[in-house]
């Protein structure tokens, strides 16, 4: 018999065993529990399909390209069909079934599986197959593709043991196996377990005492109240988020070679909030898959779609864009498969699935849903990759609401004052008064402009653009520009939308920092004010789209592009404020010479605008130089300007806003006192006059300006986050041959495998929202099962289906299939209520068992799949660190927010990370509270993970993962003993023992022990601790320097040093890092 048992080789079991080899051999000999028959009847799903799938389907399954002898064993009619006089499966007659004949054959050319396949069917398995055929060879639909149903609760003998209905399923199996449940855990043990599972933190001594008292007083109710309290804790969201961050491959960097920083913490906040507010799980999925497609989506619902953008993004120069854009879609598919469907969808990227009934065509039909994002293949070198959005925090959103409301009040009052003034005096009076007021006022143009565009008549009666400060300048070319005259603004250039002007000579180099100022009277429509960007060459060329452009959107927002290579390496910002058509307004754009979008400032009529950053990916500064087009751009289908420009100036520096504003305002006032063009000039004049003469009006204006300024400053602090978005026109999706981006095959339409997993919901749109509806429809066979199984895994360390990422043919058959269905159905029927589900789980008798492991039970059920005892598993990485910080009093609790940078070795990145100054390539250690925040907030750099978490099996998050390994290694021991924060935690725990633990050593040691393990030490344990304490006290008494060194120079007291050493020891206890 071969020593091969695949299910026992899966990662969860990799915690190594002391008696490794012997034990491993023993394990291999055991038949896995889940493949052992619970009942005497043979079940195709439980007993037969796993054998066929593992050994036969690869060559005799659904993939026609790989099918041998045209034989399919996955379909009964095919398996039983006669060919060449024999049938692979002949029901009732195992000895005449070719399958059995081949399995038993001694002939190397005949035997199945062929020796080359490296697969082996055991005699026990052959016996099972024979029995199955003898009993009629009944096929069943794969269990996971049948919608879950609630079976009747099984009969049990010891019904008194159960506390919830789910316990009946566990007990029935235990009774069948001749096992008895373990005794109930102590209240403290339960509280520790439940606290870790629901909040990620252990209970403090006071909580333990209060709970013990409550249990004594009120019994069972105390458990329920404690569970409710834990579920209501804000820490609940943090704990639950941790596992979902793995599934969603959340990280703070883009991955790949450059691995620069990104900002997705608003999405992480959303996840924490969603769990804390108990967002129903179907909604949880819907918002993440398609929040942007919901009717009038909220900011939060759009942020949620970052789930689809958490994948790695490549910014390596020279990559082929489409190759990576396709990879991002592929990643979304893999994530959908692992996190939600429990299917290895990615197998069908290149060919039909070898095992599961999913075709390559099915794959690309789902792919089509995720293929509609306006994203780039190469992006994200210096910031978030598009599409992205401003993602104000809840506090910021609230402040925006307050500011907007306050502004609205003032605007309304100003309008009233204006109206009442209109009743008092006529337009002519206003004009005359304003003129009087303006008579004495002066304001000069800011000095030092390099270029002033003007116009002059040419000899042949046309008008040409000129560089006015330089009278010898040659014609600037361009031609269909007409000039008119305005005494205040100077020459005016009119553009009719059919042509712009090209400056025929270079105007020089303004350097890195520059300003641009111009008067504009816009006639509406998308328009280019000026552009130096060359966009007529192929988009893959090096210099494509290098330059600077200022544009107006159709709504009148000012757009500034500062671009190295459009659009991947560019900063692109829009003002929130708009210019109005038909009015002379002043626009000033300043760039501070950095490559950041935040370095671009835009002013309308002298007032600074709030900006929305669409893209912030400029990799190096582009100077304002070279050829400039006015009123048009160099593109195959250029946008042009309809409207007028005047006083177009460029400055080789950033202007002082304080100088800009008085000049602009005075000039404006002068403009409106003459000319007849503007239809609303009368009201405008009245506004200007009131502002100059009416105290209350001026005060309100000033208040409004201050509010606007505060809003702008607030807007500049708003974080961005990457989101899903749909292309304006759908992208055609092709099946990709061999999965290759450059080998498109037939065109496919968005769709799902309806026969297999359920019909498309009626009236659902054919987009991601429809997909989300399909995934969460109550009859979906997988979504709820996969979810409840993962919550179960979170509690017990292993799921009811151990392969929590694979519910397909190659996945494990559930150890408690009826229980899984009972939970899944209940979850759906409860309205996908996550908290209710977890409440039931932690209050169950099953969960409340003591976790002591007897040698016989360990031999019988080493992974505790049958649950004849409570769970005992090493804590996940984050909780190991959080627990040490919490026990020592170092942990700082703050919900949500940007990632933090706790201490890590200063030279960790040296010689590894890319040597460019991209964000995310240096680790600037946090200060203050942020050094000791919960671990889920630690900056997650994919290519150089945070070592303390990495060593305890936290994944690098390059891809979706839903199961972590649990290893046990010497590097973990080194980390626990010597990592600076761990050492500090030990020191602080020592100090706490001295300060809070009581008056004698026994009490103090017991205090520390209990803080770490949630139970008092037993006498023999206390004896060990006391001996250790005495040893160290004596030791340090003779070594002041050593004591001082351990206490970081704060003291050289031997007692304190001994407690510090003991504090470290307590944090290293196996029990401290274990949920038991």
């Amino acid at each position, binding site marked *: 018999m071969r020593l091969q048992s695949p299910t026992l080789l899966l990662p969860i079991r990799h915690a190594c065993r002391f*008696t490794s080899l012997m034990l491993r051999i023993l394990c291999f000999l055991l038949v896995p529990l889940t493949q052992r028959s619970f009942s005497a009847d043979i079940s195709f799903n439980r007993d037969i399909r796993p054998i066929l799938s593992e050994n036969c389907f690869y060559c005799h399954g659904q993939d026609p390209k790989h099918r041998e002898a045209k034989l399919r064993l996955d379909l009964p009619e095919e398996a039983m069909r006669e060919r060449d006089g024999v049938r692979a499966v002949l029901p009732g007659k195992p000895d005449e079934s070719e399958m059995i004949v081949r399995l038993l054959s001694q002939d190397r050319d005949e035997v199945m599986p062929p020796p080359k396949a490296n697969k082996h069917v055991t005699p026990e398995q052959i016996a099972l197959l024979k029995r199955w055929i003898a009993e009629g060879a009944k096929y069943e639909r794969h269990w996971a593709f049948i919608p879950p149903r609630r079976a009747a609760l099984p009969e049990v003998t010891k019904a008194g043991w159960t506390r919830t209905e789910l316990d009946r399923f566990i007990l029935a199996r235990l009774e069948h196996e001749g096992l008895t449940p373990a005794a109930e855990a102590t209240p403290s043990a339960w509280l520790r377990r439940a606290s870790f599972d629901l909040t990620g933190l252990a209970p403090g001594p006071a909580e333990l005492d209060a709970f013990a008292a409550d249990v004594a007083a009120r019994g069972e109710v105390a458990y329920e109240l404690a569970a409710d309290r834990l579920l209501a804790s804000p820490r609940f969201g943090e704990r639950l988020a941790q596992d979902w961050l793995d599934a969603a491959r959340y990280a703070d960097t883009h991955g790949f070679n450059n691995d620069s920083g990104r900002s997705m913490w608003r999405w992480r906040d959303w996840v924490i909030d969603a769990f804390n507010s108990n967002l129903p799980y179907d909604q949880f999925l819907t918002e993440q898959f398609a929040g942007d497609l919901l009717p009038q989506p909220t900011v939060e619902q759009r942020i949620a779609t970052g789930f689809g953008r958490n994948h790695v993004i490549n910014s390596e120069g*020279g990559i082929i864009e489409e190759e990576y854009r396709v990879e991002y879609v592929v990643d979304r598919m893999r994530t959908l498969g692992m996190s939600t469907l429990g299917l290895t969808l990615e197998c069908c990227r290149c060919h039909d699935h070898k095992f599961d009934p999913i075709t390559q065509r099915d794959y690309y039909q789902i792919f089509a849903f995720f293929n509609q994002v306006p994203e780039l293949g190469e992006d994200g070198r210096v910031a978030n990759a598009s599409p992205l959005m401003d993602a104000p925090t809840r506090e910021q959103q609230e402040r925006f609401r307050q500011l907007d409301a306050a502004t609205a009040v003032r605007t309304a009052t100003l309008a009233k004052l204006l109206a009442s003034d209109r009743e008092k005096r006529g337009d002519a009076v206003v004009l005359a008064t304003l003129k009087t007021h303006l008579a004495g006022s002066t304001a000069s143009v800011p000095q030092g402009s390099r270029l002033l565009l003007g116009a002059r008549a040419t000899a042949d009666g046309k008008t040409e653009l000129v560089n006015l400060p330089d009278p010898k300048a040659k014609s600037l070319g361009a031609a269909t520009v007409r000039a008119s005259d305005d005494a205040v603004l100077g020459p005016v250039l009119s553009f009719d939308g059919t042509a712009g002007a090209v400056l025929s000579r270079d105007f020089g180099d303004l350097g890195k920092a520059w300003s641009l100022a111009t008067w504009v009277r816009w006639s509406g429509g998308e328009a280019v004010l000026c552009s130096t960007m060359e966009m007529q060459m192929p988009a893959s060329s090096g210099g494509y789209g290098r330059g600077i452009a200022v544009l107006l959107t159709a709504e009148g927002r000012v757009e500034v592009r500062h671009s190295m290579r459009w659009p991947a390496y560019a900063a692109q910002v829009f003002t929130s404020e708009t210019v109005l058509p038909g009015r002379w307004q002043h626009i000033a754009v300043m760039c501070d010479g950095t490559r950041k979008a935040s370095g671009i400032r835009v002013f309308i009529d002298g007032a600074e605008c709030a900006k929305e950053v669409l893209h912030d990916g400029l990799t190096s500064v582009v100077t304002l130089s070279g050829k400039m087009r006015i009123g048009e751009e160099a593109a195959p289908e250029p946008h042009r300007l309809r409207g007028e420009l005047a006083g177009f100036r460029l400055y080789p520096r950033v202007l002082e806003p304080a100088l800009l504003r008085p000049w602009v305002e005075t000039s404006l006032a002068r403009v409106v006192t003459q000319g007849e063009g503007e239809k609303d000039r009368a009201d405008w004049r009245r506004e200007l006059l009131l502002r100059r003469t009416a105290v209350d009006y001026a005060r309100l204006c000033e208040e409004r300006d201050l509010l606007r300024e505060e809003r702008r400053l607030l807007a500049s602090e708003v974080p961005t986050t990457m989101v899903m978005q749909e292309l304006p026109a759908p992208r055609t999706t092709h099946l990709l041959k061999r999965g290759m981006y450059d080998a498109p095959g037939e065109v496919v339409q968005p769709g799902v495998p309806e026969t297999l997993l359920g019909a498309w919901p009626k009236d659902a749109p054919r987009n991601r929202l429809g997909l989300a509806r399909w995934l969460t429809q109550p009859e979906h066979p997988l979504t709820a099962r996969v979810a409840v199984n993962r919550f179960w895994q979170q509690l017990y360390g292993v799921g009811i289906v151990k392969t929590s990422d694979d519910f397909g043919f190659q996945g494990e058959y559930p150890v408690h299939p009826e229980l899984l269905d009972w939970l899944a159905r209940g979850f759906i029927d409860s309205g996908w209520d996550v908290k209710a589900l977890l409440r039931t789980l932690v209050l169950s008798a099953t969960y409340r068992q003591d976790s002591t492991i007897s040698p016989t039970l360990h031999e019988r059920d080493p992974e505790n799949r049958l649950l004849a005892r409570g769970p005992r598993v090493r804590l996940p990485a984050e909780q190991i660190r959080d627990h040490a910080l919490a026990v020592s009093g170092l942990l700082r609790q703050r919900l949500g927010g940007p990632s933090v940078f706790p201490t890590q070795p200063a*030279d960790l990145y040296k010689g590894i990370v890319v040597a460019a100054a991209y964000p995310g390539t240096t680790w600037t250690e946090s200060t203050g509270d942020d050094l000791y925040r919960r671990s889920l907030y630690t900056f997650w750099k994919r290519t150089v993970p945070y070592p303390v978490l990495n060593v305890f099996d936290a994944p690098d998050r390059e891809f979706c993962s839903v199961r972590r390994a649990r*290893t046990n290694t010497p590097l973990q*021991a080194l980390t626990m003993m*010597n990592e600076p924060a761990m050492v500090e935690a030990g020191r602080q725990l020592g100090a706490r023992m001295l300060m809070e633990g009581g008056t004698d050593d026994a009490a103090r040691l017991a205090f520390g022990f209990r803080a770490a393990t949630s139970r008092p030490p037993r006498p023999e344990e206390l004896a060990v601790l006391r001996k250790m304490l005495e040893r160290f006290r004596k030791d340090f008494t003779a070594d002041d320097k050593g004591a001082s*060194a351990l206490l970081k120079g704060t003291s050289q007291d031997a007692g304190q040093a001994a407690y510090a050493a003991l504090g470290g020891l307590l944090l290293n206890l196996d*029990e401290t890092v*274990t949920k038991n």
Partner: protein
Amino acid sequence: MMNCNQYSGAESRRDFLAKFSYGIGAMALGDLLSPRAEAAGLPGVPHFAPTAKRVIFLFQSGGPSHLDLLDYKPGLKEHFDKDLPDSVRQGQRITGMVTGQARLAIQPSRYRFSQCGASGRWMSELLPHTQKISDDICVIHSMNTEAINHDPAITFIQSGSQLPGRPSIGAWVDYGLGSQNENLPSFVVLNSVPSAGGGDQGLLARLWGSGFLPSKHQGVQLRGSGDPVLYLANPDGITPERRRALLDGLGALNRLQFEQAGDPEIETRIAQYEMAFRMQTSVPDLMDFKSETDATYELYGKAARQPGTFARNCLLARRLAERGVRFIQLYHRGWDHHDRLTKRIPVLAGDIDQASAALVTDLKQRGMLDDTLVVWGGEFGRTVYAQGSANHDNYGRDHHGRAFSIWMAGGGIKGGHTFGATDDFGFNVVENPVHIHDLQATILHCLGINHERLTYRFQGRQFRLTDVHGHVVKGLLA
């Protein structure tokens, strides 16, 4: 991280309990877990008798120019600044960095090649020391990869897939073979600091990561500064004696807990803490170069006296090999010579030439080359056409995956042999192509591993380093 199975004794729990004493101070658990010469990997592995017990991979990150180092193309001189013929390019894709270039102009190497060794192999003047070991090494001119950019190419050669997520080759070897030294990790990574610049590409933890294999198979970085292994040093105020006492106390308490809870994982944890304690001695011992002679430093070059250099790491690699470390992965960055190749390549060659040759010579002198496989090479080569314009003195070359050269030595590889060939332009392989998967299959073969049988089940599928490809290149084997 490390394969803990490798460090734990094969005693039964009962034996362990019987031997264990519960007193404080007197206990020296390390003695109970007496070191064993070898710890098993997978049952049945190696599959057959190996020719190499260990591998030293001298990885040259960035893509060294085969045309300027190893692949002699005298005929190119006549084609200087001529367009690359379409018959050579054959429509193959090129990177986004040169798609905008008007011409692909042929750029001959400006370096002199001379014949060396018994075989009369041609080698560039940039590698004078490597020339001297010509008879010990096997040069492969027919390497090829599908990738044309660094990240996918380096991920491919190190893990068998262009995309992240697969275990690295060292992790596979650790998983299959286990350790030969229970006091050191069996897969060690050394990153060297180039003497000038060289950080154009990042190295990525995934290159020595364990992918879906248990994380204990990850490579352990030995660092040139600070703690050689992260968190190896005890904190201030904790002497080795105090650490020992703390471990005894910890062991006693864990043992008491084991009696109560019965979880074998507790025993494993005790053993891992003891292993950590032993590493606190064995790693500083490894990093203590006092015993190295002047003659050795002369062999490896002056730079070997300076921690963190490639030369130092080559010497350290030998020390690791002596201690039975299975897979020693070195990285040297800076070979990405898109421009100013002629200014930069002499510096890079200067960093690696003497030390690489010295390592082979040193291993040979110590009788270790026979069972140590040394591999030298990068993720791809460079184009025969210039990036930018052709120029006799100052040129650059873009990435080229269709053909490039590496060399291998020792551990069952045919010394002095040349394998495979490229066309007159060093652009296409024309003889005996060696794909990345073939290289991987061959390295595993030297270690006694059938690459088709070293598998790991993940997500319902048996995965292997070479995916569903790869052939052992018999022509390379001695």
